[in-house]
């Protein structure tokens, strides 16, 4: 049991004691001993019923929204615009090799898709929007591939290590067509204003891989696996950029070594769980705070 939940249960107990106390005072005032027990019990029951009713009413209440109509309009607008944006970005990918992840590529893509160049103003941050589009597209493709391999439930994968290795390889291979311009993309993704989105995209990627590799952990391992996997992915990505071996052979060897290392570390951590408990708590809270700051603390599944 963690310290926070202990604290919570303690405070609950305290609250109950307080309630009991107040009932006792009431019963003393009544000063009819035979009624005391009955009254106390009845009060508590009433109280519970009242609270339950309140809660039910609260849940029933529709969430009021002042700008409901405007929001509706906006989502409608968004869908229409998103469709066009995706069409333009899709067409722009063809110009990335020649023009890089830039506004020029988007302008050419727009012209290819049958829109005038001025429409590029729909992408105020320019190249980074193209990068994010491609990143998310690859993430989606990978999810489809993983689902095909392990099925929707993905409760049992033969060997998680092998599966993770395969998934990372597939994902990295998607960078192959743009490998010449990918250093530019990495640089743009690590610019301060773009970091939150890039980090969120990468966390989504490793989260998907962990999920389909059968990870259902709800303890600290959840974080450890994802951070570990993200580190491996980033390291291998960087290795891949300077790899000149045919078919990226050295990259895949590098990847296998990193995964072997990680599982070794993992084993050590599990064996020395007691000693690391305090450390893990500290890291957990730090990570949660970081996720809150980045606004990633939403329920994904």
């Amino acid at each position, binding site marked *: 049991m963690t310290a926070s939940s202990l604290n919570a249960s303690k405070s609950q107990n305290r609250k109950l004691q307080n309630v009991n106390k107040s009932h006792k005072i009431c019963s003393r005032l009544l000063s009819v001993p035979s009624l005391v027990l009955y009254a106390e019990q009845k009060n508590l029951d009433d109280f519970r019923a009242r609270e339950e009713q309140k809660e039910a009413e609260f849940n029933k209440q529709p969430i009021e929204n002042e700008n409901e109509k405007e929001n509706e309009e906006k989502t409608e607008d968004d869908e*229409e615009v998103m469709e066009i944006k995706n069409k333009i970005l899709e067409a722009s990918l063809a110009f990335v090799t020649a023009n890089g992840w830039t*506004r020029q590529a988007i302008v050419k893509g727009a012209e290819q898709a049958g*829109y005038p*160049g*001025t429409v590029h*103003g*729909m992408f105020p941050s320019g190249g980074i929007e193209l990068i994010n589009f491609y990143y998310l597209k690859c993430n989606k493709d990978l999810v489809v591939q993983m689902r095909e391999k392990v099925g929707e439930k993905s409760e049992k994968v033969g060997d998680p290590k092998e599966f993770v290795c395969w998934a990372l390889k597939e994902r990295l291979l998607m960078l192959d067509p743009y490998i010449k311009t990918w250093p530019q993309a990495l640089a743009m993704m690590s610019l301060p204003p773009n970091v939150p989105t890039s980090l969120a995209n990468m966390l989504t990627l490793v989260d998907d891989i962990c999920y389909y590799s059968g990870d259902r952990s709800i303890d600290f391992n959840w974080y450890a696996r994802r951070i570990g996997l993200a580190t491996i992915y980033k390291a291998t990505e960087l290795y891949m950029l300077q790899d000149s071996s045919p078919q990226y052979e050295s990259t895949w060897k590098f990847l296998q070594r990193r995964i072997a290392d990680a599982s070794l570390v993992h084993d050590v951590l599990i064996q020395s769980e007691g000693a690391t408990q305090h450390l893990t708590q500290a890291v957990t809270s730090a990570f949660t705070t970081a996720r809150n700051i980045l606004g990633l603390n939403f329920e994904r599944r």
Partner: protein
Amino acid sequence: MIRRAFFTSFLNRQITRTIFSSKIINNNVEETENLTHFGFETVKASEKADKVHKVFENVAESYDLMNDAMSAGIHRVWKDVFLERFYPTQGTKLLDVAGGTGDIAFRYINYIKKLVKANPDNNVQSSVTIYDINQHMLNVGMKRAERLGFQSNEALDVDWVCGDAEKLPFDDNQFTAYTIAFGIRNVTNIDNVLREAYRVLQPGGRFMCLEFSHIEDSNLLQWQAFHHKNIYDQYSFQVIPPMGQILASQWEPYQYLVESIRRFPKQQDFKKMIRAAGFRAVDYENLTFGVCAIHSGYKV
């Protein structure tokens, strides 16, 4: 001494008039079909165009000087930011409405010139049509263009057309961009102008508007220095018209200017109007705490 006393009394009279006329707005005159506003005055719709025409006929020569004086040169920054957001590309066909003296068009031409220099192999023709209701303003612009060398060349067409923004003499889907800077405030019917803009733009074409707007809550300009009026209003009503009188010997046009800014729809409302005209992905950005706003939308 006597002259100064005379001048002060003259100013006082004008200021009293300003305060008086600013009270009219509180009466909230109902706008009926054929009534519209000219500053804080309510006039017949048919008369507004003439009145506006007269205002700009009178100020055409001193227009640029007054812009610099009134905004302390910041209007140049606004226009630069406007072009920065627009970010023209080669092949853009721009219609610059209310662009008489060429402030937007010349900046656009500079952009295109630089692009042509950077890619000399790209033989796409770009164009700009400067459109204004007032021939006097166009004349000033043409003179400036001649002096500064902003004329047609093999990569760029420059046209000067005089006409009404509510009835554009152009075919449908002819332009890829429509800009209107400090102009839409002066038209009789904003909706008609937006509808016409939508008509002449190609699908994917961009509508952009730079206009004085309403200052945001809680910023420096909202500071109520004296008389329970914020310094922005103080400056607008007490400084700009006298400045017009001194520098351009014209009080009325600058009185009209500050009044018409107050009558212009708020950022959110104008955004809704643009959307209602059919534009999508409509958005706006405030400049200098909302003294100006850039609205942008796309025909899809």
